[in-house]
């Protein structure tokens, strides 16, 4: 049985940063990922990463923008930590070798991003996430003492008899073998859950596994109703056009040729917060001022060519290859699309969850620094700051305790559960059908505009899919790279995520950040300036069941320096 002081699950930015920090803290570390680490979805972050590093800028200003962006739902103590530690983290990455863009003096240069009062986004052309991800992987290759388990899929978490987390159960995708990993501390860094929506900007692997693993263990999820729709995604396939495009000066037009953001955010225009721009677009489309294919246009031609080539090359390729549009000469049709989950596993500012021994960081976690709406380029920062803090804290704490006992019987149970999935009759629906229906429900009823009736319908649908997911048909009976059985497990995880999101959205009877309730169109600080947590009391393992009732609770929003104000851009 492999044993580690700290076991990091997920090797995106959050996971690799956590693993490196834990190793620096002297812990014996294992880091595992269901795909090769450099394939993680952190790759997709084109735009950049925020930090108030310029002498003229201040972390307070960054923090205030973040608080305002969050529609005052973000916890200000956590936001302060993130913004204060941001400059040091950027410098650390630079020292490790990230090839950040320089200004004429050879110092780090910035670009503008939405919702920010200063240009404080640091970047590498439009491959920022990829560049940082690859550099962190370089560091993992360098630090051979950190054990890497690549193409290992975690199917369940394990607790000892006191309820302290004691490890995880994994499936090695190459040969299908199952193993019990024993660990003193487990850090979940499994990324987002965008695949429950269709379309989405998220990759196929973003199935909310960690969120569901923690949920099944009884860990509370927080702010789950806050799901970000990004203003500029390609209509057909949900691919993202980075906010960097608008940061560099691109404009939005409706079918009448109007630069409609004038009506919604006269000061910040295209660079208002994402929820604001997405809602503006959706309103234009819903009120008949969009193009016939349900889009508006993004025009990048105001940006100088040279600048496009050096800073936005990726999106020229994306538009050409995936939408057949030459954005150097013509506008590209876009619409709001699912992008990011602000909510996740509730943690404190050291990444610690209410379940002992369990940590979470990155998109999987909810500290909460993003509250109701995440600012562009704040997510990479979140993954790194809280990944590092979680790794360091876990390493410290691990020293103080003995290895918890992990019962072998759990491995046998999991093995049996998977064997049953593989062996069952091919009578149920296909994984793909259930997943497609889930995506349709979520995009129709739990998207930019929501109401009581739609959310209730969505929940009914989700409950039905929860049952259907238990009998999905499996084609692949083998062990080597059995992606079919993996798909069935991920489907279970996704439906649990969808349930938590919808239950929370139904509960929040106001409009704040990404949650816009047409039946409660105002923000209501008196009653709803609080987090909603969703906790599942199931049998620990296995899919949540349709008759389980998730428990809802509230927790305070931490305010430090900034009192809620009306939010205009």
């Amino acid at each position, binding site marked *: 049985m492999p044993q580690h002081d700290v076991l990091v699950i997920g090797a995106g930015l959050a996971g690799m940063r956590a693993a490196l920090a834990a190793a620096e803290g002297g812990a014996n570390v294992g880091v595992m990922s269901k*795909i*090769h680490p*450099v*394939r*993680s*979805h952190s790759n*997709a972050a084109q735009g950049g990463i925020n930090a108030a590093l310029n002498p003229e800028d201040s972390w307070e200003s960054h923090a205030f923008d973040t608080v305002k962006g969050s529609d005052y739902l973000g916890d200000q103590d956590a936001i302060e930590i993130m913004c204060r530690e941001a400059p040091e983290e950027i*410098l650390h990455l*630079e*020292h490790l*070798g990230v*090839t*950040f*863009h320089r*200004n004429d*003096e*050879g*110092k*780090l*240069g910035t670009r503008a991003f939405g919702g920010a009062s200063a240009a404080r986004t640091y970047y*590498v*052309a439009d*491959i920022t996430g*990829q*560049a940082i991800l*690859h*550099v962190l992987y*370089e*560091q993992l*290759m*360098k630090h051979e003492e950190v054990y890497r388990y*690549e193409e290992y899929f975690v199917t369940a978490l394990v607790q000892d008899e006191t309820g302290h987390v004691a490890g995880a159960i994994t499936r090695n995708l*190459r040969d299908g073998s199952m193993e019990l990993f024993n660990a003193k501390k487990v850090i979940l860094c499994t990324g987002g859950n965008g695949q429950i929506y269709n379309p989405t900007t998220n*990759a*196929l*692997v973003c199935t909310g596994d960690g969120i569901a693993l923690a949920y099944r263990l009884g860990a509370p999820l927080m702010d789950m109703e806050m799901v970000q729709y990004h203003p500029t995604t390609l209509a057909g*396939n949900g*691919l993202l056009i980075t906010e960097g495009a608008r940061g560099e000066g691109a404009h939005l037009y409706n079918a009448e040729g109007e630069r409609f953001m004038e009506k919604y955010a006269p000061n910040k225009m295209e660079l208002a917060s994402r929820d604001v721009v997405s809602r503006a677009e959706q309103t234009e489309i819903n009120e008949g001022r969009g193009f016939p294919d349900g889009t508006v246009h993004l025009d990048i031609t105001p940006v100088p*060519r*040279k600048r496009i*080539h*050096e800073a936005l*090359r990726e999106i020229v*390729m994306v538009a050409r*290859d995936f939408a*057949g549009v030459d954005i150097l000469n013509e506008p590209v049709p876009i619409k709001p699309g699912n992008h990011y989950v602000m909510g996740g596993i509730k943690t404190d500012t050291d990444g610690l969850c209410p379940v002992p021994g369990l940590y979470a960081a990155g998109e999987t976690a909810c500290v909460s620094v993003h509250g109701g709406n995440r600012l562009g380029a704040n997510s990479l920062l979140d993954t790194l700051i809280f990944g590092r803090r979680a790794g360091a804290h876990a390493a410290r704490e691990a020293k103080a305790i003995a290895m918890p006992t992990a019962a072998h019987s759990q491995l046998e149970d999991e093995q049996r559960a998977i064997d049953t999935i593989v062996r069952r009759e091919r009578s149920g629906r*296909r*994984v*793909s*059908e259930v997943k497609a229906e889930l995506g349709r429900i979520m995009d129709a009823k739990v998207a930019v505009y929501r109401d009581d009736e739609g959310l209730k319908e969505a929940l009914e649908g989700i409950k039905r899919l929860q049952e259907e997911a238990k009998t999905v048909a499996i*084609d*692949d*009976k*083998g*062990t*080597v*790279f059995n*992606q*079919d059985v993996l*798909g069935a497990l991920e489907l279970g995880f996704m439906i649990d995520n969808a349930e938590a999101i919808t239950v929370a959205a139904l509960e929040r009877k106001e409009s704040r950040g990404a949650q816009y309730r047409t039946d409660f169109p105002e923000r209501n600080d008196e009653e709803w300036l609080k987090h909603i947590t969703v906790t599942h009391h199931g049998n620990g393992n296995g899919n949540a069941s349709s008759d389980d009732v998730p428990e809802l609770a509230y927790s305070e929003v931490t305010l430090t320096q900034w009192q809620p104000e009306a939010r205009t851009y």
Partner: protein
Amino acid sequence: MSDFALKVRRYDPESGEPAYWEDMSIELEPERSVLDAILKYKADTDNSLAIRCSCQAAICGSCGVRINGQSRLACNTQLGEASEELRAHDGTIVVEPMGNMPVLKDLIVDMDAVHWKKVQRVVPWLLPEGDPPEREYIVPAESMIDITQSMACIQCGACVSACLSMEADPEFIGPAALAKAYRFVGDPRDSQTEERLRDLAEDPHGIYDCTHCFACIEVCPKDVAPMSQIMRLRRRAIGDYGIKDSNNGYGHEKAFVDLVEKYGTLHEAQLLPKSFGQGSLIRSQIDPDSLKQLAGSFPTVIAGLKSGKVNPIKAIWHKKLADQKQVKRIYNEVESRGERIELNLYIVGEDPSDNEGEGAQEPAGGDRAGADAEAGKSEEGAIQ
């Protein structure tokens, strides 16, 4: 919507059966990708077909395969285009796993055993001098933009799959890993530039093992142009550090350049002896140190003569180009420049005569042109 015919190579290691072809017919819009077609087949018909994929946007580097014999990403190859290619079998799109790496199942290959091992070989992390500064390292903006081209590599392995040298010499470090090496060699923050270059030049499977076949440039979905990066490693090794490697890669490069300067095209009979010393085959003045290596190349020469690929008469009395003066002019022009000019996709030339324009602002009209221009502009660079 149209019907597309696909022929997919399948292999199940657990069945005990050899690999086989599976035919499928998929209805999709022509601008959808080959990956979309495979995913549709998995969704509707048989989910046991294995392919790595995640981003569907040519970002994660998972879905490298061979389509109609060409290594590329399944997610950025459009069905319509692929079915119309000459290489397609009467409109049937042929999909196979990548080459030069062992197949694990269906379209999944073992990248750890080949690709990642080679990446690890080039010491792929920054080695700065001493403690880091209080703030950032101050480096020229261009240097960062310059190495961004190799940072753009998504480690998909398409170039490894296509590399001809690697097929002949599986130990060749290969295009992706060498492009990664350039990312450190070109990085002014790294303190081991010379050591890295010496290491890669001395390794018999290193920078001089590439045969300039251009395959990696052609297949790379991110325009990393690995061969150009390899050529830059050579130029740095020779031009900046004067590294004369024991494989005599240095001599070979120099002979190439000198011969083209003299004859306008490559005088093949003189290449070998000149690579190893000053002489030609007739007036032999070969550097004794190189004799052993030269002797080692005779079997190749003899095989060439036997197969008729080398015509001894033509090879020895090579004709000069009619307009040899033009070649000389290019050499003079290049050699009169104080600094080497490296073209790169992210710095696309700031020719003052070109403001709005296409021309130099475009990513160098395909990398082949870029690479050629680059090679031509370097003092000691090979001219191919």
